[in-house]
């Protein structure tokens, strides 16, 4: 038994900011002080507050050290772990109130959160199955196999009101019911871990922080629909997640929790990993299955739906990682417990990846029905540098931008669609006044043009035509008729594309057109980009009153566009200026501005 545990985040965010080096140093220092039998170091999954990484928590005190540096470790070990004196200076400042140290749950970031899917993330060592079992893991599978019929399992899922967390929000129980109702010699359970929405990383965090929950839920699903084989299709871009899944599958097989005759009930179920290779469209269910089969990941028309003819033409269910992460809890605590959280039609919690122009970037799990204001201002800690909130983007390339006027709408599946966006997988990117909404629409169209698989014409050609119009507008060559053309094309794409990628591709354009039409008009009529982003519409200028004539800008201009004598105001030649902004960055007197 250790008297103290040090939990260090080993998620991608913190690993990127160097947590692996922190762990090495920590183990070295602990050994140096002879504490290796008293203090245990645990590499966990994501704590959620990635902005403050690398993150480290010392238990039993619950001291939350943030942005830990290698140089701090010696002090933390010798002061805190050896002498029991918390190094207050290095704690996350929100947990320090005068002389008192507050528990993490009372900070603004964590206070409103309710962790169901992320229950074990940042709490257990994901590479040790016993820690998962120690927190009630695999109990739900045991209960299902020994006490429940498949019909009862499906009924529990239906009663819970759980809807697919991948974005579309289809009722999970219903999906299982359809697949269970189609007799076949072989059925499959698939897990969509091809988290492709840029800015979304909740699935990765579950896989990295609590991989067994996915395996357990897939086995439960297998029992419910009568399948003996599962596949997890995971992005190759997530090496840590792949590694931990491999470890977890190996351990589960060793413990008899995957494989033949699980719990002595005669139920067989095994899981294999399949790695994606970087194609956004493979997040679409039929494309994902085509890809597992070893082909180009192109979607195919539905019907037949996968519940009838899915992987290898057999009945298949496909759920997303976060959906599965809810399942064992629902089985153990009952559907009523789950349905007591959230709104009327969207039950439970949702994990959002909070990013962009917000102070506390990271992962948050909140009950459905929380407002955008609570997420951005309270949990997210507001916008940095005193800037003004302009919009929040949800749903990635399939979603839209929500303006400040809808700040108080309770977030759930149906409300988001009503205001022109969608839940998507849960990326939530905050934008401030420096973000140009036309540029953002163009950014997402570039994405869909790149990622369109090319199989159906509306998507392949339509997205490109829309992008060309947006490029024209951001160059100041747009006309008002272009806006009508955009809307017309958008309608064609929505109604005629084969899969959701094309059907939802116009959403970023439509939502920005709806809420920020004035910005489009400014680009077209005034030839100005109000946010100062679109380079072709910008001019860099020097304020002669502020310019001291230090010549720094002229010396840094890559194109020799700035002229002027020493100690006299300089001038930018607009013909030569390439708008790189180097002069503005270098100027020490704030004399250069853009408009």
């Amino acid at each position, binding site marked *: 038994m250790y008297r103290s545990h040090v939990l260090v985040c080993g998620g*991608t965010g913190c690993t*990127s900011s160097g947590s692996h080096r922190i762990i090495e140093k920590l183990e070295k220092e602990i050994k140096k002080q002879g504490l290796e039998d008293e203090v245990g170091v645990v590499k966990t999954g994501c704590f959620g507050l990635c902005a403050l990484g690398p993150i480290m928590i010392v238990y039993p005190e619950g001291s939350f050290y943030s942005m830990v540096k290698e140089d701090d470790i010696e002090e933390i070990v010798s002061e805190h772990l050896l002498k029991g004196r918390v190094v207050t200076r290095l704690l996350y400042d929100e947990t320090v109130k005068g002389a008192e140290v507050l528990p993490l749950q009372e900070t603004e970031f964590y206070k409103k959160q309710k962790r169901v899917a992320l229950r074990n993330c940042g709490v257990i060592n994901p590479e040790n199955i016993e820690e998962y079992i120690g927190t009630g893991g695999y109990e739900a599978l045991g209960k299902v196999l020994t006490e429940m019929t498949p019909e009862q399992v499906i009924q529990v899922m239906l009663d819970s009101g759980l809807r697919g967390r991948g974005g579309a929000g289809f009722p999970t129980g219903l999906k299982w019911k359809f697949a269970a109702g189609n007799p076949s010699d072989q059925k499959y359970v698939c897990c969509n871990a091809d988290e492709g929405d840029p800015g979304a990383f909740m699935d990765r965090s579950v896989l990295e922080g609590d991989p067994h929950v996915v395996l357990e839920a897939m086995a439960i699903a297998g029992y419910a629909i009568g399948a003996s084989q599962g596949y997890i299709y995971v992005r*190759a871009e997530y090496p840590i997640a792949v590694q931990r899944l491999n470890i977890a599958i190996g351990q589960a097989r060793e413990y008899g929790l995957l494989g033949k005759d699980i719990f002595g009930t005669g139920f067989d179920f095994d899981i294999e990993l399949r*790695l994606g*290779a970087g194609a956004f469209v493979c997040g679409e269910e039929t494309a994902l299955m085509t*890809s597992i089969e*070893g*082909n180009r990941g192109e979607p195919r028309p539905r019907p037949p739906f996968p519940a009838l003819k899915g992987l290898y033409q057999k009945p298949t269910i496909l759920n997303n990682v976060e959906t599965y992460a809810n399942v064992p809890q629902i089985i153990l605590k009952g559907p009523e417990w789950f349905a007591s959280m959230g709104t009327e039609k969207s039950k439970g919690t949702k994990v959002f990846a909070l990013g962009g122009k917000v102070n506390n970037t*990271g992962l948050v799990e909140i009950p459905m029905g929380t407002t955008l204001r609570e997420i951005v201002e309270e949990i997210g800690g507001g916008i940095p540098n005193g800037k003004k909130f302009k919009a929040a983007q949800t749903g990635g390339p399939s979603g839209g931008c929500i303006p400040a006027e809808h700040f108080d709408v309770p977030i759930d599946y149906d409300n988001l669609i009503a205001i022109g966006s969608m839940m998507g997988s849960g990326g939530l990117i905050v934008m401030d006044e420096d973000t140009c909404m036309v540029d953002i629409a163009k*950014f997402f169209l570039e994405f869909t043009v790149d990622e369109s698989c090319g199989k159906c014409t509306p998507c392949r050609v339509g997205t490109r035509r829309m992008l060309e119009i947006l490029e024209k507008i951001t160059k100041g060559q747009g006309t008002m008729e272009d806006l009508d053309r955009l809307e017309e094309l958008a309608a064609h794409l929505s109604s005629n594309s084969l899969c959701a990628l094309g059907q939802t591709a116009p959403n970023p354009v439509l939502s920005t057109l709806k809420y920020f039409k004035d910005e489009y008009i400014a680009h077209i009529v005034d030839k100005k980009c109000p946010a100062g982003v679109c380079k072709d519409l910008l001019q860099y200028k020097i304020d002669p009153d502020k310019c001291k004539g230090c010549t720094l800008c002229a010396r840094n201009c890559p194109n020799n566009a700035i002229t002027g004598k020493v100690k006299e105001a300089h001038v930018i030649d607009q013909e030569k200026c390439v708008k790189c902004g180097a002069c503005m960055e270098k100027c020490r007197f704030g004399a250069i501005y853009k408009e």
Partner: protein
Amino acid sequence: MLSKKTTVPFRGTEEQEKALLEVIAELKDEKGALMRILQKAQDIYGYLPIEVQKMISDGTGIPLEKIYGVATFYSQFALNPKGKYQISVCLGTACYVKGSGDIYNKLMEKLGIEGGECTPDGKFSLDACRCIGACGLAPVITINDEVYGRLKVDDIDDILAKYE
């Protein structure tokens, strides 16, 4: 758009070929094996030149046109060799909003190559990627396994200098 130009001649070794043939022998009878074979082939050679695709076709009986189709469909499969240092710029939404586009442009300018290409000396290759999930550190780039986060355009010179 990433460039698909191949400018470097194929220099496969016998050991590599042996390793590839072993992979093919192991996987060829499994369902849906092509993706996995291509992934392993790329691990062996670093990329998937037409010579390697032909070997896979000969070994598995899968038509070359299908192999080429799959290899060009997925962005992780490279038809071009990668540099000794592989630079990847995240152009996911969170990074883009925080200015990763400027960083990408700066790298293209500094290295004198387009995205998807490799410098003629084989030292650096440059790619854009879609969200590596380190959005909390936006904007980020990765060079091989090292991640650089919370970047500004001005940081690029110093970072590249480390690899000179």
